[in-house]
């Protein structure tokens, strides 16, 4: 991976006021964890609920949508993609650092909130395994969402709007009552990963798939979406 482009994308994504505002979103889950701990309701079930009903279906996709769609989409909108396109690099080598940087930024901004949730929400039921699966779900979910929303930004003019419709109406609504739709929901797979640590408490619209397989599937989505971005950039007509 081209390190200069990775650093460029990181600076672009992190060095802006928007990143500070985005970093507040995971703290909402942290606030709930603090309330749980203070009220004595923190346990494995509370942790599972917090991850599967707030962190994974709402906070993670929202952050990945904003960051992932801007990683490549904003380069195209402001014309800086023209400078990257006028280099001898393979087109995949141009999009890969941007998507990796988007996933990295999403993970970094999620980490403080996630750490507080892991530390407080489980209470006396603290489990290293459950904590590890929660981290894996956020990492693989960030990669898959960032690549998918990056691809979306190369396909449509308003990726954030389309992405919100996907997250709210497909993942947040249809996939919750139509079992077959869960198989086409990235959020459902992130929940399947976190369920790997707490299977006894999980009944939140998770597809019948093991945690490891769900994590592998999210990684595969990230890889295919990144490859598609490279292909798309090669054929895209730049303004």
């Amino acid at each position, binding site marked *: 991976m*081209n390190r*200069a*482009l990775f650093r*460029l994308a990181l*600076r*672009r994504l992190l*060095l802006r006021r928007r990143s500070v505002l985005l970093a507040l979103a995971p703290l909402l889950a942290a606030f709930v964890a603090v309330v749980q701990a203070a009220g004595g309701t923190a346990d494995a079930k509370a942790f599972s609920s917090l991850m599967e009903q707030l962190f994974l279906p709402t906070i993670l996709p929202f952050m990945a949508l904003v960051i992932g769609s801007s990683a490549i989409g904003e380069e195209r909108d*402001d*014309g*800086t993609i*023209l*400078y*990257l*396109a*006028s*280099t*001898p*690099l*393979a*087109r995949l080598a141009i999009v890969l650092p941007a998507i990796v940087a988007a996933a990295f930024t999403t993970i970094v901004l999620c980490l403080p909130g996630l750490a507080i949730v892991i530390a407080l929400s489980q209470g006396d039921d603290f489990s290293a395994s459950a904590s590890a699966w929660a981290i894996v779900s956020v990492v693989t979910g960030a990669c898959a969402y960032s690549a998918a929303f990056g691809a979306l930004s190369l396909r449509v003019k308003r990726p954030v709007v389309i992405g919100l419709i996907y997250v709210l109406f497909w993942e947040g609504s249809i996939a919750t009552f139509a079992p077959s739709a869960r198989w086409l929901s990235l959020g459902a797979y992130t929940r399947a990963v976190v369920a790997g640590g707490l299977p006894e408490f999980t009944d939140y619209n998770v597809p019948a798939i093991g945690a490891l397989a769900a994590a592998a599937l999210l990684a595969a989505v990230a890889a295919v979406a990144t490859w598609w971005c490279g292909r798309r950039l*090669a054929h895209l*007509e*730049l*303004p």
Partner: protein
Amino acid sequence: MAALSEGGRLTLVFQGVSKWYGDTVALAEVSFELEPGVTGLLGHNGAGKSTALALCAGFADPSTGAVRVLGLDPRRKPEVYRRIGIVHDRDGLWPFLTARELVELMAGLREVPDPPRAAAEALATVGLEDAAERRVGGFSKGMRQRVKLAQALVHTPELLLLDEPLNGLDPVQRRHVVELIRRLGAEGRTVLVSSHVLHEVERMAPRVVVLVNGRLVAEGETGAIRDLIRDRPRTLRIAAGSSAQALARELVGEGLASGVRVDNGFLVVETGDMDTLGRRLMPLARTLGATVDRVEPLGDDLESVYTYLTEHARGRGR
């Protein structure tokens, strides 16, 4: 038309290229070839200059026809970008990078052996060495334009595609950049520079390609195109008061006007020989005892010049 392979001195071949977006035709059957030296790409706003440059740069596919840069199709062979430098008309730059960081980044991406040294040289070439450590987000339009030029030069390309490179520059900077472009051409590089201002192109390009509404209407030495424009039929409006009709008769009788009419008390004269009319008008008026208060050209704007070139091209059966 030359074969589309790299050979001889041809750096860029644009062969029968058309480009349309939906129902809008941006370029129609345009063909030209570039050899080392500076060539101006002239046309009014919306004539198709930027589309032509985007196609040359490999940022778009032609709807029909073919573009070859240094013998390669830039859409399929990105390695050709080691040998091309491009100044885009869009203003977007990474605002958080300093000028040095930006030019060095582009040098590195284009696999220049010593990016810091190459960046320093390129920035010095465009006169930005003193602002090298400043962030481009705080730059004026002229400084941004020079950063764009520096990143296009940093890998010493054989072909330079410059879209309106003088935009936003003050007169001193313009003179500097014009000199630079001429020098690049003299060094044997191929430079295609777009502009909508003929006299600007004239100062740096001995050869010009003129586009009007997506069609190539003139191509050749800049001086010849200028003469063609200068010698085109012109229309003048003359304020001659009550002597207008008498003056009109004399102008036609002397063969100085190809058409004359009186419009709202003004004499509107069409002539194919502006120089002679200019010399003879006042002596004729004196002979008639007429008073000429004002003489002004009509239809001398750029649009009219390009319209004339279009009609001239059609007359040649283009």
